[in-house]
């Protein structure tokens, strides 16, 4: 009564910069289960075939950003990518253009260090009132979705300017700047516009929309970068 179990080929890039001269791919047969995600498939390899394999994981529900990888040629979260949507061969590599720690684990530090370039925290009006800062439903709508970034680095890995310019903060950092600038409660707009408008800032964006294509949360950093350009040009200092 048992049906022949469907298998797919999982090709995973392997690389330990301390030991290997260059990356290579290992190929694994993986048994497909209903509603299997790429992350499930990676665990099947880890547990049943190759316990040397390494990758990041945490929430497995697309809210933490840990398991982002380059899957069949696109930045995706492994946990919310269904194997069934990818065909019989799945190729997984670490996020491109980011230094590899080992296998699918990349170095998080450059990404988070660059966040510091845009003053990555809220500045409210001093002194704080006893109650909440009032904000209308409409004003709150202005920061809808832009606050949904999970810092997974997909956009950063897809951005050609981030590949070549080390001082360029990157799409996620600009998205965060826009999140504060569009927030009626924040008071550091002038300073942030100066920061994002610097020589290696928003004007370097080539408007190729790679970041928007890559974002697993369907955010569009390019639009916000364009908005920041307009605001920088029109802001009265």
């Amino acid at each position, binding site marked *: 009564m048992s049906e022949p179990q469907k298998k797919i080929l999982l090709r995973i890039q392997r690389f*330990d910069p*301390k030991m290997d001269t260059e990356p290579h791919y290992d190929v694994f047969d993986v048994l497909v289960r209903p*509603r299997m995600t790429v992350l499930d498939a990676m665990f099947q390899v*880890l*547990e*049943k075939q190759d*316990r*040397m*394999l*390494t*990758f*990041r*994981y*945490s*929430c*497995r*529900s*697309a*809210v*933490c*950003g*840990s398991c982002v990888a380059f899957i069949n040629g696109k930045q995706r979260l492994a946990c*919310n990518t*269904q194997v069934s949507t990818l065909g019989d061969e799945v190729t997984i590599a670490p996020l491109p253009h980011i230094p590899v*720690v*080992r*296998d699918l*684990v990349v170095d*998080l530090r450059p990404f*988070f260090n660059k966040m*510091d370039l845009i003053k*990555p*925290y*809220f500045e*409210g009006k001093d002194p*704080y009132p*006893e*109650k*909440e*800062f*009032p*904000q*209308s*439903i409409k*004003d*709150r709508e202005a*920061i809808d979705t832009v*606050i*949904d970034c*999970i*810092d997974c680095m997909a956009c950063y890995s897809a951005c050609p300017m981030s590949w070549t310019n080390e001082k360029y903060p990157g799409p996620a950092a600009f998205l965060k700047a826009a999140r*504060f600038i569009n*927030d009626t*409660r*924040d008071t550091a707009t002038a300073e942030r516009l100066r920061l994002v408008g610097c020589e290696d800032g928003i004007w370097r964006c080539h408007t190729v929309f790679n970041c928007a294509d890559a974002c697993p949360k369907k955010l569009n950093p390019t639009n916000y970068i364009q908005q920041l350009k307009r605001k920088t040009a029109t802001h009265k200092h």
Partner: protein
Amino acid sequence: MNSHDVIIVGGGLAGLRAAIETSQYCDTAVISRVHPLRSHTGAAQGGINAALGNIEANKDDNWQKHAYDTIKGADFLADQDAVEVLTKGAPARIIEMEHWGCPFSRTAEGKIAQRPFAGLGYPRTCFAADKTGHYLLVTAYEQAVKRKVKFYDEWFVTSLITDKGAVKGLVAFDVITGDLKAFKAKGIVLATGGAGWIYGRTTNSMINTGSGMTMAYRAGVALKDMEFVQFHPTTLYPTCILMTEGARGEGAYIVNSQNERFMQRYAPKAMELAPRDIVARSIQTEINEGRGVKNLYVHLDIRHLGEKKIMLRLPGIRDLAMDFAAVDPIKDLIPIWPGQHYTMGGVDCNAKCETLIKGLYAAGECSCVSVHGANRLGGNSLLECVVFGKIAGEEAAKYARTITQDDTKESLLRDSLNAQKDHVARFYAGSGDEDPSIIREEMRNLMVEKVFLFRNRQDLEEAKAKLKQLKAKFSKLRPIIGYKVYNLDLIRAIELEEMLELSEVIVAGALGREESRGSHVRLDFPKRDDERFLKHTLAYKTPDGPRIEYSAVRITMYPPEERKY
């Protein structure tokens, strides 16, 4: 030697809130097993409770009513002085998060919006769409960055260092390099979250293995009320991804295979908004009695809320349902079943977050203050993180400043470090051929089969025996890969060892508690028994397994009464 005045273990909301506090007074570090933004707080959806009185329907709400609901929800096992601290402190802590930028949803007057949540007498749950945890986590992280808190990201703490009843530091390894190091600290705050991954069916992140609980337990602190495990009624079938209680707060129905809103038979007044333990058991009863869909799950129905409200108030769960169950809640029913969600028990501490060990504090889900008693209300866990995170931070900093003489012996740190090095070396050497993945799977299945929503002596005895076997298997583990850089094989073996230890404590507590209270239901003892069991379970580690003691519940406001909804 790494040395800090206060080290906080865990970078979720409780840990970050503690760090924001301590960093005002002393040198602070946060050690986290993942980057703080990958913490499980980010998965919290529905909201955070405070009697703000921001809408017409809750104008006469106050902290006493919030306290009453919390205590009743807890089936009267909560310590009422601690609940007072929680509910009195709630408004200030939430306003503070708003002042730091948390993008709460708003009322027409521009105030923080509030929605109904289960077990609450008033709409009291402040929310930011259905991603409240994510926004609070990001906000707290930003504020910790602003205060230049030192972060050790992706460091895994393996043990605490104590001497003569006081904390002296900890041992941790850098996951990236694999290097083990001893850290010196005057004060330590444990904020490592829950232990949901012990269960095969859970909403928790895969990192929620209860490590802070195990660390404290091994250092001699009791684990309190571990048998109280919350099962969330509405988790996606079959992945157990959370479908927020906020859905029911917004008016969702739960229906069985006959399309009946069956909650009318279990909680006629509160219906779907009865507390989680009650709704979860009702769902499981429907499934057990043959009224589930394919005998496996029931349906959450939000279609009648309309596309506009769903997109405004519940956009996140729509995405989750589409990605993980291939249904669009705007036009489809959502398949749900109960799954483990929250660990009510934890590190025994008081309302100042102090443990038995001087200088050691606990906050958030890994702690048991206890404010949740036998069943936590939705919207009280994020609240616990900000209220008790701040208190733990304050107390730890205060304590650290009293220590002016550094009397920590180098030999103590060296010996503790060497002990951990030996422990890891034993993993590398191996002592048999048992596969940790199989042991893990057996443990997680066992806890669902025997220690889930409905318990009885026979099942629990079987679970106890089986756990003993699994521990014996674990002692004959195949060699763990001896590789330093990001070694998942090692991390997962260490976590499994912790989870086996905690499973044993859960089962021991459940066996001892011969009554049904809140989330803990014994079919062989179906009634709450205040005479025998209005008390906390305390489990102490001994070489032969947990030793169970009990301690009194502090009742200061509301005497126990029958719990009806």
